[in-house]
């Protein structure tokens, strides 16, 4: 018998862990190289997952608390550490770029902050605002802006080091072009990563280095953040469609789908337009570093909604 047929014949049993012990390894090995069997195996396993579901009844009340408590006892939540690490990684990368430029680079013009020096001082100010909101230390002003920025970043990270995930809900100020919206720390930390990366991009453009996207998980968190703050921003811009929403279908690193309520708290009863775009390009739009026309978005549905929606998204950055 063709070995392929032998393995294919086993797929039903395999999907229910009902092969003999020597079969499983052979099946797994075969699935790595045979796309047809891998497809069938995936379908059969999905069906096997459903077979016992005849009559679904709710889990008993009280079990939820028991399960969540036991889970977090065995593995304490680490989101704060994850978000702090993501920020720290961007700090290292920006510091590396700053360390590589000559003394003349500090006076190179920057379109938003006069020069590179102004750009780094602006970033330091926003880092200091979060540190202050958390009751942390604010670094004294220094002539050397790189040292002052780095010192402030270290102080902020130091402030976060001993906190647990409970503090992620603490209200703090976000940096914004106008005003300082108050959001939970989890949002502010994503913003610190986002802003530090964005200014690394700015600096790269000024000194002629290649721009680099952050890791996919960071991109996704930045999109998540934009989706959380967009309904308020849309309302402030007068774009309010009760029950309406826009679907963001983003591709590439950080890909995913999000539905944004049009200026109302949700839920969304109807999607009025779908915007397909590259996820990293979308985050650059949100940073105000890419105009809507350069997003390369494909819009289906109401273009008259998608256009203004993206215009509002492009104002969310804090420069």
């Amino acid at each position, binding site marked *: 018998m063709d070995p392929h047929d032998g393995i*294919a*014949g*086993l*797929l*039903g*049993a395999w*999907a*229910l*862990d*009902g*092969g*003999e012990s020597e079969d499983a390894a052979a099946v797994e090995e075969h699935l790595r190289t045979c796309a047809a069997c891998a497809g*069938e195996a*995936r*379908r*059969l*396993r*999905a*069906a*096997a*997952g*459903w*077979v*016992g*579901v*005849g*009559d*679904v*009844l*709710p*889990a*008993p009340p009280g*079990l*939820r608390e*028991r*399960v*969540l408590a*036991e*889970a*977090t006892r*065995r*593995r*304490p*939540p*680490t*989101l704060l*550490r*994850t*978000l702090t690490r993501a920020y720290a990684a961007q700090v290292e990368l920006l510091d590396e770029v700053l360390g590589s430029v000559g003394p003349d680079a500090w006076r190179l013009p920057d379109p938003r902050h006069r020069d590179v020096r102004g750009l780094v001082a602006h970033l330091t100010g926003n880092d200091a605002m979060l540190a202050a909101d958390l009751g942390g230390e604010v670094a004294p002003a220094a002539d050397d802006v790189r040292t002052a920025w780095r010192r402030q970043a270290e102080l902020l990270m130091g402030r976060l080091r001993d906190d647990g*995930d409970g503090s992620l809900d603490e209200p703090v100020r976000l940096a914004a072009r106008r005003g300082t919206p108050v959001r939970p720390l989890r949002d502010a930390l994503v913003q610190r990563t986002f802003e530090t990366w964005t200014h690394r991009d700015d600096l790269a453009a000024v000194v002629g280095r290649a721009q680099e996207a952050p890791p996919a*998980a960071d991109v*996704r968190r930045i999109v998540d953040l934009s989706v959380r703050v967009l309904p308020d921003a849309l309302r402030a811009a007068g774009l309010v469609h009760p029950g309406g929403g826009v679907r963001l*279908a983003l*591709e590439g690193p950080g*890909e*995913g*789908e999000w539905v944004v309520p049009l200026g109302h708290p949700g839920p969304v009863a109807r999607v009025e337009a779908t915007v397909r775009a590259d996820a990293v390009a979308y985050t650059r739009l949100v940073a105000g570093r890419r105009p809507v026309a350069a997003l390369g978005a494909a819009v289906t549905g109401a273009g008259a909604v998608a256009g203004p929606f993206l215009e509002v998204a492009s104002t969310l950055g804090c420069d």
Partner: protein
Amino acid sequence: MGPGTRDVQLHERLVAGDEGALAEAYNEWSSLVHTLAARITADHDAAQDVTQEVFVHLWERPQAYDPQRGALRTWLCLLARRRALDWSRRRQARARYQTTAGTAELATHRGQPAVDDALTWETEAKAVREAVRALPEAQRDVVLLAYFEGHTYRDVARELRIPEGTAKSRLRAALATVAHRLADEGILER
């Protein structure tokens, strides 16, 4: 972009240690997991323990689930089945050494109102019931023995006195038919 994007996102958040992601997974799939555990173990406490094991395992070792290989819901359901079968086998082993085996009660909560997430699975549960019921009897017997008793195809063949090759091919055909019907209902991908 595949339909598993939400699973990819949840997985990423679980790896990041975001307990909100575990709460979301529990809210969405606990009734499925608990129902399977209750049906297989026929024991109220065991069903709760299995449900706990499944979600604690997801939280402690999120890397054990690979979103590229299938839906998180499937993974949770199959893990629940495996753990429930393990429990049933341990009980059988205990029973062999004990003169007084405890009486197992069917632990489905008939008295409780079906609320929350359980209701959201009503359509799926109905489709699954119908898909399994519509199978030719010979196929249904094989798949239910394998599913609920955790039998291998050899055990199934022995129990039903059919050739091993027949047991294997019936399992494959039965699951393919169920997959096909659930795809028709929009519950599974093609």
